[in-house]
C-alpha cells in the first residue's frame, strides 16, 4: 500500500480514462474496449488492498461524468465487478491469462447488464446489440493489457 504503487495505479487509471474518451471514428468506437474497466479489474485482482472497491467507485463516477446519463450508474456497475474481482482475486490471479480473459468477459457482461438495467430504470433504454460487443473486445484485449499493466507495475507476472 505504498505511495509508489498507488501513484502508478492512479496514473494507469488516468491513461485508461484518456483512452476511453479519445474521439474515434464510429466504426472503431464500436470495438473500443472499456479500458478503464479493464484497468480497474487488473488492480482489483493484483492489488486488492490498494485499489479495490473505492477505485472502482471513483473510476465509475468519472465515467459517469464523461458518458453516463445518470451520475452513479457506472459507479455502481464498476463497484459490483470490482467487488467480485477482489473477492476472487486469489483464484483469478493464479490462472493463466486466457482463463483470466474468460473471467473478464463474464465480469464485463455483468457490468453491461447492470448498466442496461439502470438505463432502463432511468428511462434511457438503448437496446442496440452493439453494447455487448465491448465485453468481447475487452476480453480479447485482456492478455496484452494485463501484460502491459504488469510491466508498468514493475513486476512481470
Amino acid at each position, binding site marked *: 500500500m505504498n505511495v509508489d504503487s498507488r501513484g502508478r495505479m492512479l496514473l494507469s487509471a488516468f491513461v485508461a480514462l484518456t483512452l476511453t474518451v479519445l*474521439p474515434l471514428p464510429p466504426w472503431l468506437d464500436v470495438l473500443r474496449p472499456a479500458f478503464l474497466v479493464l484497468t480497474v479489474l487488473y488492480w482489483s485482482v493484483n492489488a486488492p488492498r490498494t485499489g479495490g472497491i473505492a477505485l472502482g*467507485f471513483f473510476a465509475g463516477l468519472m465515467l459517469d461524468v464523461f458518458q453516463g446519463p445518470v451520475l452513479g450508474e457506472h459507479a455502481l456497475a464498476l463497484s459490483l465487478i470490482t467487488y467480485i474481482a477482489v473477492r476472487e482475486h486469489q483464484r483469478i490471479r493464479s490462472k493463466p491469462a486466457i482463463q483470466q480473459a474468460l473471467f473478464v468477459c463474464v465480469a464485463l457482461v455483468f457490468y453491461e447488464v447492470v448498466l442496461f438495467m439502470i438505463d432502463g430504470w432511468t428511462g434511457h433504454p438503448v437496446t*442496440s446489440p452493439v453494447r455487448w460487443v465491448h465485453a468481447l473486445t475487452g476480453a480479447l484485449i485482456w492478455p496484452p493489457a494485463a501484460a502491459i499493466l504488469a510491466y508498468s507495475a514493475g513486476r512481470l507476472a
Partner: protein
Amino acid sequence: MAAFGTAAGRPLTGRGGSPGFRFTLYALLSVVVMYLDQRQHYLEQVRYALQAAAYPVQLAVNSPSAAWRWLRDSVQTREALRAENARLRTTERDLELRAMRYEALARENGELRGLREALPPIADRWLPAEIVNIQLSSLRQRLLIDRGAANGVFRGQAVLDDKGLIGQTTHVGPWSAEVILITDPEHAVPVRIERTGLRTIAVGAGDTTSLALPYLPANADIKNGDLLLTSGLGGVFPEGYPVARVTEVHRDAVQPLAQVRAAPLAHMSTDGEVMLVWFRTDRPATPAGGDSVGELASGDTAMQPQPVPPKPRPAPQASPAPQPAPQPAPPPPPADEAHPTPTQQTTHAPHRVPAPAPAAASAAASEPADNAPAADSAPPPPSAAVSAPEQRQP
C-alpha cells in the same frame, strides 16, 4: 465489521472493513447518487464541479487533433488562402444583401400587423463554439464544446451550424458544455414539413446521416426531398430552422405508419465549430412570458412556446429569399387561420399570437410527460418523449 465473509483465506480487512462491507457501502452510495441525480436534481452543482474537473482531460485528449488542424491551417498556400478569401467575400456580399432586405421586410411585417412591438423576436446573440470532443457511437451521439456557464450557456440551448440544427446542450459545466445531437437515439425534435406544414417528430437513429420519422401515418403527404424545419413546439428549438431533408419514404400496405428517413442538413461529423443561439424573449409578441411559464401545469418548461427566429431560411435549398414572393411560402399549419403574409421569412409569425399558443401548451401540459406535439394538429398522437430527452423538469 464483516457484513459478509471473504472467500479468500486471508481476510482483506483493511481500513473500512471487508470487501463485502465496502461494496455494500459504495453500492448504497451509488444508488443514492443516482436517485438524487435522476429524481431530485440535487446534484447539478456536483455535476457542474465534476464537469469542470473533467474538462482538462478532454482538452488534453483533443490536443492532437487541434494541433493537426492548426498545423494544416498554418501551412496553407497563398493561392488557397486567396481563393478562400474571394469565396468568403462573395458569400458575405450575398448575405449582406439578404440581411438588408430582411430588415425592410421585418419592418413591413410589423407595420402590416399594426403592432410595431409585435415584431417576432430575433436572435439576440450568436456565440461560436469549438468542438472539443465528439462521441459518435450508435448509442451516444454527443459533442463537447468549449463554452460553458461562464459564457452564459444554459441547459437546453439550441445549437446550430451554418447548414442546420445540430442539437441542444444537456450538461453545462463552467467552461464546457455537452451537446446532444439530434441524431442521438435518445433525442427527438419536433419538426414541420416545409411543403405541407404537417407536423411530426424526428427521432435520432444513432447515425449521423439519418433521422427517423416514426409517427407519420401511411397516407401522410410526404415525399423524398421534403425539407423539415423545426416546428417550435417542445420549447427548446425556435421555430423555422432547417433540420433535415427526407431521403426515404417507405409505405407498406399492412403497416399503419409510414417509414420515413431523413438526412440531417448539419454536417455533424465534419464540423469543427458550432453556433450557440440566444433569442430575445422579452417582446410582447413572445407567446409565453415569464409568468405564464409558471402557470403551465407542473412547470413544464418544455411546453413554453418559443420565440420566432428571424429567418427560417430553408438553407441549402436555393433560397431566393430576397423577393417577397408569397407563393412558395409554406402554408401555415392547417389548424391556424392563414394570414397571408407578404414574406416567406415571416410566414410563421401570425399564428404566434399570444392567445392560442399557451392554450395549446397548457392543453398539452395536462398530459403526463413532455410530449408536447400531442397538442398539435399532427395526426398521430406520438407518445415518445420529445425534444428534450434528458431534460429533467424541476
